[in-house]
């Protein structure tokens, strides 16, 4: 039996229908802007993609590593401000700003994580939530970055791919967001199949047992937080280039930190595709409720989120995707 066990693949091949579904989904995503041609359809999908990336960032630190961060908006804001400040003040391309933002976010994650990740249980969540509002207050009062009125990304009509601004169509933004999501999800897919990924998941399930197996807990927690922060920062930079306006009230809001949590938990925390599924459900819900209910709809979407989360907790606490994953992941027992 050992021989037959050794002959198996470490990563079982998913069934054919999963492959077929994946290929169809990819084709649909690539062709989407030409099938649905309205600016609203493009806008909706760009938001879904950005949120899918943001939710995945939360999934890395919380879903895989078990540290509930409620401060993800910090890194979203840092990403947005890094590229915009560099471009508005020094004319540096947002591509460089993207990298700087990732680096600064990772450094911020170290600064926040080293003292707070020693806390067990819910204290890390509370600490990140409070640090998040602290950072927001700093940016609302910091004159050099526009204080409460924020910053505008200066309009630049020449060489749009260099300046990451597209004024005639949203389609380039769509493909940029799709590319960012593809890169981010591929990175997490690789992470999950690496030594580090195994260790993070072990740490999530039982830190004491993980430590007894030689895993340096504090270092791994901070590492997961850094990866998560860098991912969130990318979404921030792209968002800034998309809306061209930085408003610290919105960028650093706790709502962003919480929405990415809701999306991931809804879709399936600790799974690769759960965050994307959650984003694909919640973003349209929010946008359409705003259309149907007008200005008052802003709160309606939160009520709907609440109901959805309640249903998931009652009926499928591990998220919608867990129904599928479990079936794919566990193969038939070998006699």
């Amino acid at each position, binding site marked *: *039996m*050992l021989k037959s*066990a*050794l002959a198996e693949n*470490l990563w*079982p091949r998913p069934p054919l229908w999963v492959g077929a579904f994946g290929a169809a989904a990819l084709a649909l995503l690539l062709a989407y802007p030409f099938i649905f041609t309205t600016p609203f359809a493009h806008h909706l999908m760009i938001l879904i993609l950005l949120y899918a990336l943001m939710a995945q960032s939360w999934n890395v630190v919380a879903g895989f590593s078990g540290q509930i961060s409620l401060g993800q908006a910090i890194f979203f804001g840092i990403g947005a401000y890094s590229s915009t400040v560099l471009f508005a003040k020094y004319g540096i391309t947002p591509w460089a700003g993207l990298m700087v933002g990732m680096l600064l976010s990772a450094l911020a994650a170290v600064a926040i994580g080293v003292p707070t990740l020693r806390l067990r249980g819910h204290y890390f969540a509370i600490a990140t939530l409070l640090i998040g509002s602290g950072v927001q207050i700093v940016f609302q009062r910091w004159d050099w970055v526009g204080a409460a009125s924020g910053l505008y990304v200066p309009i630049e009509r020449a060489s749009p791919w260099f300046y990451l601004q597209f004024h005639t169509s949203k389609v380039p933004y769509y493909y940029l967001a799709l590319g960012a999501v593809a890169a981010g999800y591929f990175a997490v897919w690789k992470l999950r*199949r*690496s*030594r580090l990924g*195994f*260790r993070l*998941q*072990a740490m*999530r*399930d*039982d830190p*004491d*047992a*993980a*430590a*007894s*197996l*030689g*895993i*340096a*807990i504090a270092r791994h927690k901070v590492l997961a937080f850094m990866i998560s922060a860098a991912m969130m920062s990318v979404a921030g930079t792209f968002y800034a280039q998309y809306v061209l306006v930085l408003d610290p009230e919105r960028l650093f809001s706790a709502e962003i930190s919480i929405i990415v949590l809701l999306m991931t938990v809804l879709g399936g925390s*600790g799974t690769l595709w759960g965050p994307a599924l959650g984003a694909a459900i919640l973003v349209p819900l929010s946008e359409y409720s705003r259309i149907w209910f007008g200005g008052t709809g802003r709160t309606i979407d939160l009520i709907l989120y609440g109901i959805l989360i309640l249903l998931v907790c009652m009926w499928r606490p591990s998220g919608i995707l867990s129904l599928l994953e479990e079936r794919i*992941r*566990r*193969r038939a*027992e*070998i006699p």
Partner: protein
Amino acid sequence: MSPLLDVQGLTKRFGGLTANANIAFDVNEGEIVGIIGPNDAGRALLDGRDITGLRPDRIGRLGLARTFQKLKPFVDLTVTENVMVGALAHTPVLKTAREQALESLAFVDLLDKRNHFARELSTGQRKRLELARALAMSPRLILMDEVTGGVDQRSVAGLVALVRELKQRGVTIVMIEHNMQVIMRLADRILALHAGRRIAFGAPDEVRSDAAVVDAYLGTIDHAA
């Protein structure tokens, strides 16, 4: 030959309570040393951290593996993945880790559950999983915290056989047990603790007939009368 593990003058206090005072014992390569003690405080002493004051992950990397009295499986990983985490302590290569994990699982007879999630296992199976996980680290010494505790009688025999087989493979073991039958059969030497003090250390027969041990465990005839 110097012992693999040499404990000297070990004292552990929890606040004002001295759990253990000035304990000394040694473990030779390939030996099974059992630790018995009527109180929980005495047993808590043998958390690796308390032995040397090092961080647990450092102790793990030094080649000291342990199983937990209160079982700690990685519930959302499969059985194979659980054991792979142990093997990954000394190899960065997933393929190697997986091979070693499967060998460990075959040894503890849990291979048929390899693709199950750990949360689906019974208590007896979880004990085996912990053993396999510790074993996959290729440790120099394994601390077993009540390996037969909390499982049904039928599983005890299997676990005892497993420990005996481990010893035959040359694995050094320190086991903390309250099942006297188990420890008398398995251990080469037994350390008896009472009220945080060492009252006997020697071969099972010696310890069993030691006056202080009998007194601590059974009470003297005077007390009984």
